[in-house]
């Protein structure tokens, strides 16, 4: 898989990881204060933010792995920044990335439209929820409350990551800086590559 990747694509994912690493940390900041007040559900509605880099990078690069990799790299960089969520972020990064990747794999990396991006956001939400269910012990919570958390997370994944990711990718395409990447070659942002 790695051989089909250009170094510039990998570095691009890494730098996007840094940019979103900064944004993610801003949000963790915001979320923590909330979480103290209203519990872990505080994070749910904005969980989609944490999936967005997968979708943006896949939108731009359109190769197998372009969803898992940036998410993982963003997580590694966040760990390098030394925050207290720590090494397990890498694991959750991989899990979230795999969730998004699954949606693109199911559509065989042929279609890159809003529907698939929302699907990817949902995929990331589902995977990360299963992982969270285990690690954070959601099993101890009331099933209806868990269902509420799950619904919020899926919605957030579809809307913030899916729609938001496509919006940012398209806006970036319009700036003309993506010459030389798959997204620019498929002229219209929606057409299958």
């Amino acid at each position, binding site marked *: 898989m790695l051989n089909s990747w250009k170094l510039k694509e990998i570095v691009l994912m890494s730098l996007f990881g840094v940019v979103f690493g900064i944004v993610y940390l801003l949000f963790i900041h915001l979320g923590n204060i909330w979480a103290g007040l209203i519990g872990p559900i505080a994070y749910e509605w904005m969980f989609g933010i944490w999936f967005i880099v997968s979708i943006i990078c896949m939108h731009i690069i359109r190769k197998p792995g372009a969803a898992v990799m940036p998410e993982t790299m963003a997580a590694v960089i966040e760990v390098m920044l030394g925050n207290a969520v720590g090494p397990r972020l890498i694991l959750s990064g991989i899990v979230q990335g795999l969730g998004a990747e699954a949606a693109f794999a199911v559509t065989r990396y042929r279609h890159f439209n809003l529907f698939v991006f929302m699907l990817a956001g949902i995929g990331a939400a589902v995977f990360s929820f299963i992982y969270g269910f285990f690690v954070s012990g959601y099993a101890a919570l009331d099933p209806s409350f868990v269902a509420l958390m799950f619904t919020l997370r899926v919605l957030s994944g579809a809307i913030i990551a899916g729609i938001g990711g496509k919006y940012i990718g398209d806006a970036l395409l319009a700036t003309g800086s993506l*010459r030389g990447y798959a997204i620019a070659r498929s002229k219209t942002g929606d057409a299958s590559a």
Partner: protein
Amino acid sequence: MQVPETIFAMNDVSFRFPDDSHQTLSSVTFSINRGERVAISGPSGSGKSTLLYLLNRLYPMNCDGIVKGEIELFGKASELYAPGEINKRVATVFQDPDAQFCMPTVEEELAFTLENMRTPAKEIEKRIDRVLESTGLTHLKYVNIQTLSGGMKQRVATACALVMEPEVLLLDEPISHLDPLTAKEFISWLDLLQRRFGLTVIAVEHRLDSWGAFFDREIAIDRAGNIAEDREFIPHETLHYPARIKSVSDEDSLSAEGLSVTIKDRTLLLPLSFTSKKGECIVIAGPNGSGKSTLVKALCGILKKDSGTVSAHACGYVPQSPEFLFLTPSVSREIAFSGTSSAQELEELMESLRLAEIAEHNPFAVSHGQKRRVAIGAMLADKRNILFLDEPTSGQDQRALLELFHLIEERLISGDTVFIVTHDMEFAASVADSVLLLKEGHLSGMFPAEQIWEETDLLAEHNLLPPKGVMQLAESPA
């Protein structure tokens, strides 16, 4: 006498980017011998960098470009080289001092290069020390690269290139961010290295006049990507700017009193005071890292000042990367963003800045010169009559420089005040009414432009050189 050995040969080479319809380079033919010093010149966008990247094999792989014709490197067709193979013999220094390192410290960066070359671990340390000594950078061995000034970064990049002990050195506008004295030192240092190691040097450059007689040969490329000329190098004359009509009025436009800036306990600007007039053009000059950008940002209120006052209401700021300012997806909306000007005024403004033809383009997607005009337009539409331009001259070709000159002149005539940060002394001499000299965060003074260019010592203290055209300018009739 030895028979010269040909190391690079291009035979009728054309190059096209996959998403372009036209050729970026077309029927390029030349050959370069070992030990030559070749300059590649040409207007912006003519394909100079592209040509360089064909020689170090970054293209066509990295952009999926389409090459026609034959490229021979060291007597072997370029397609036959394995990835990375040629880069062990050909080293490159790029234009952007900020984006060419991947490790935190100088030592690690050099080690990274040597590891790529599969140098045995035992030898790495020796090689690093040797190259640092021969390039005079030993004191920087353990320094974090991102804390260095642009000039120093560029020298570190060159050391990284030399540590590979290459046969060829490719340079892509290596001095465009350096202050004049540092640039001059860089060139004489390169001259020394070339003699010592017998390198072949190929450099892309807009400002060949700064290079004196360094080169042996010049290959000029034209707008269409053809070789326009391939001749023996003759030192370039500096660009002649038209004489400017003075437009300074008596009315004050901005005055700073005891302005100082401190960030994270580091004093970046010591208290300074000065006054500017309407219609005056003030050039801010000084060494890399002396606080020029900091001063500009503090004056227009982007940086918090530590003490002092600035009396000015409407300051417009055009950063080195004008795209930092852009907020909307089209030029016309960008200009109209604040809603301060009427539709009539906007239209006139767009017309005078030649933005009407790109009104519906995305401001990020237009050329660099146009971006700057959009940013200036946006500032003027907000009724900001004091403009700050941070390094508008770097990396610009002659046409763009003249265009910038006229644009500034027009603003001055209509009574605006323009502050320009630049390392280009010729440009400075042609536009400035006065010059602010900065050094290590300290304002040495505000000098009238007519007298400053003769004070060689004062200029040298600020890493500046007298403009080469100053004598001609003084003699030419106004």
